[in-house]
């Protein structure tokens, strides 16, 4: 059963986009992925509306005190195994937001992260490469 799920995941990963406290830039670049130039739907990567259907979470932005419980709840709702792909410098490490009183750290402090895609924002090509790398690891 586990193998069947992995096999299905590799063929057409459904991704859910989770933005904790982002600046929108990574999020727009994610939407750019489904716009005509990159069009990741030809690889079977589909953006979906519910974490319960997600094979992978695309996480962006830093986590703050108000969003932390909600982010954890979304992660709990995803069926496992679920890939977590941290997109952008904020999701990989809090960097510029380190002095802030409201930021509670990067994603890997709160949930297992499979792939880190640094960049502010990473280019869409880099994001595709990150997703492919995550799938190859399975």
């Amino acid at each position, binding site marked *: 059963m586990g193998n069947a799920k992995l096999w299905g995941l590799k063929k057409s990963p459904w991704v859910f986009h989770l933005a904790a*406290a*982002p*600046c929108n*830039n990574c999020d727009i670049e*994610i939407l750019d992925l489904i716009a005509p130039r990159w069009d990741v739907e030809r690889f079977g990567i589909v953006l979906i509306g519910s974490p319960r259907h997600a094979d992978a979470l695309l996480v962006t932005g830093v986590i*703050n005190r108000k*969003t932390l419980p909600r982010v954890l709840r979304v992660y709990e709702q995803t069926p496992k195994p679920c890939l977590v792909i941290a997109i952008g410098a904020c999701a990989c490490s809090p960097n*510029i937001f380190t002095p802030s*009183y409201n930021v509670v750290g990067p994603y890997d402090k709160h949930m297992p992260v499979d792939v880190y895609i640094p960049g502010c924002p990473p280019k869409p090509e880099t994001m595709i490469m990150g997703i492919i790398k995550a799938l190859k690891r399975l």
Partner: protein
Amino acid sequence: MRRIVPIGPYHPLQEEPEFFKLIVEGEKVVDLEINIGYNHRGHEFISQTLTWDQVSFLVERICGICSDSHPYAYVLAVEDIVHITAPPRAQYIRTIIGELERIHSHYLWLGLAGHFIGYNTVWMWVWRYREPLLDLFELIMGNRNHYAINKIGGARRDILPEDYPKIEKYLDLLEKKNTMFTNAILDDPVIRARLENVGVLTKEDAIAYAVTGPTARGSGYACDVRKDDPYDAYDKVDWNMVVFPEGDVLAKAKVRLIECHESIKIVRQCLKDMPDGPIETRVDEIPPGEGIGRHEAPRGEVFHYVRSDGSNMPVRHKVRAPSYMNIASNVVAVRGYSIADAALVLAAVDPCYCCTERTFVYENGKKKYSGQDLLRLSWKKTEDIKRRYKK
């Protein structure tokens, strides 16, 4: 019977997590409660721990869509403290980037508005012609977003003369396509039926809620920092403020489309008149004092207040972004319209949105609609109108 439709904090209209509570009676929206603060990262506090030059990189990360506007207003505020102005060439460079960013932001809105009413063709076409613009940004400034062109006392990078033809070539393409989009959207009876007389914000309400930018200009209230309080090259070029009196979603769309034409006009004139010379005035020290900076971002007026005590970092930095007032006006704009229109009306002020659908309608504690259903309701309404027009 009254029901509550919570939208968010992760919901179809915004990328930033925000929480709207629609109170509905049957199909009709009777009230709206807004709860923000999910995106609070403490920028104003962090700004006080960084040096003057570092802050311009920080304020860029407030919003990725208008990532030129915040540093622009910030450097204007600091230049106000020091009592200097940027050299003429730097002023023209900043104006060009500010206007190109306006085009990119308005196109982004137009595409997503198309998506919300079920016209994914509009989305894909518009975003296709947004891509070459991002390539131009990469060519001039080395990054597709977060350009870091503004620096205290001038511009960080020069626009090279060999890049002028590339920019002009793109503007030619864009002018043609923008005309095509304007005609396509204004001629389509279905789009007109979906947008016309929906989400009307009257001029009185616009003033009462202190809205700015295209939201105010679409309600017939003429306010634009570029005209009211010109800075940099805006008083040296010839352009018109776009105002429509209707106040509905169509008027806001028209304002944005025609503003793109005006932006093309401004960039063309700037490229033609751009003087030679240095791009930076050297600033050695920030004296004690306070300064304000205002810039007309794609969504409205961005206001920055900075206070200095003569040290190497600001002691107080206050930011007011346009969406803060614009979102509040949703309370009156959405009242009385159907749930199918709500997604569009909430998006019409152009808050920064995305497509993570996580909305639920609760009826006596039982889940009824999800975010996908809300979009589907909106798409179904468009389909119904289409069918009516075919008959």
